[in-house]
């Protein structure tokens, strides 16, 4: 029987963000916005959902008087991503 895919990750933008964060140590909000080609509003909502799920950490910093939002994947996020990839493979191998 097919395992249900994690609804937090099974969305284009959230999956894009997690895929980006798994390949880097940490990334600023602006980097995620550029790479995912998303709007700031939508991205804010989606990273908040990832944070609430415990998949990413968000740190707010000030640099030269400008706010910077830094995102980092957590170990729970890595585990969820690995599980998601494993489950998705079940759907593809028919």
């Amino acid at each position, binding site marked *: 029987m097919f395992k249900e*895919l994690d609804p937090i990750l*099974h*969305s*284009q*933008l*959230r*999956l*894009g963000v997690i*895929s*980006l964060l*798994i*390949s*880097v*140590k*940490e*990334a*600023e909000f*602006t*980097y995620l916005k*550029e*790479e*995912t*080609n*998303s709007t700031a509003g*939508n991205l804010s909502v*989606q990273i908040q959902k990832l944070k609430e799920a415990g998949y990413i950490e968000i740190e707010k910093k000030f*640099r*030269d008087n400008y706010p910077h939002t830094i995102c980092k994947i957590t170990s729970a996020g890595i585990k969820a991503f690995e599980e*998601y*990839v494993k489950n*998705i*493979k079940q*759907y*593809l191998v028919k």
Partner: protein
Amino acid sequence: MEDNNLQPEESLRLINGIINSAKNKLADDGFQFIFWGWLVIVCAMTHYISLKLNFEMGYMVWIILPPLGVIVSTIYGYKQGKKSNVKTYMDTYLGFLWGGFIIATIITLAFGFAHGIKATYFFLMILYGVATFITGGMLNFKPLIIGSLFSFALAGISVFLGNVDQFLCISAALLCSYVIPGHLLQSKFKQQAKNV
């Protein structure tokens, strides 16, 4: 990127696309290689020419230029770090590699001369070779790997040369392992930035 639900095939394509694009991005603009390559070549050749002309104070160039180089290089690195909006694992590993290289170079320069100029320059060329060999492997950039092999070979050759000729040898090693790969790295980096 819209926030809609995906088909499993789409999910996998999205993950692969993003991870591959991050993996293939060149993490180094080549500036430090070009800058330090030319700086040390200028020092070595100035010292070499001054010895050939029997000018005793030629070694002073080593006391003046490298500390200025450290200031320029640190400011450049700091500014680049501030500009960057992502920190990759590659940045961290390269930082540790070159940090270790700097410490090893300082120790070699500070204590190596007790064993003579030949021994010092031999170790310096080996160090250049090791650091560029690993960096080339990490960045998957062949010119750095090939350049490092020249550095190793020149270190071996230097043992058979006289003291004054060590300066020519180290200049050639830097040209092969820093300057030429550095310029190639820079042009590839610029090309990549243009294509984004």
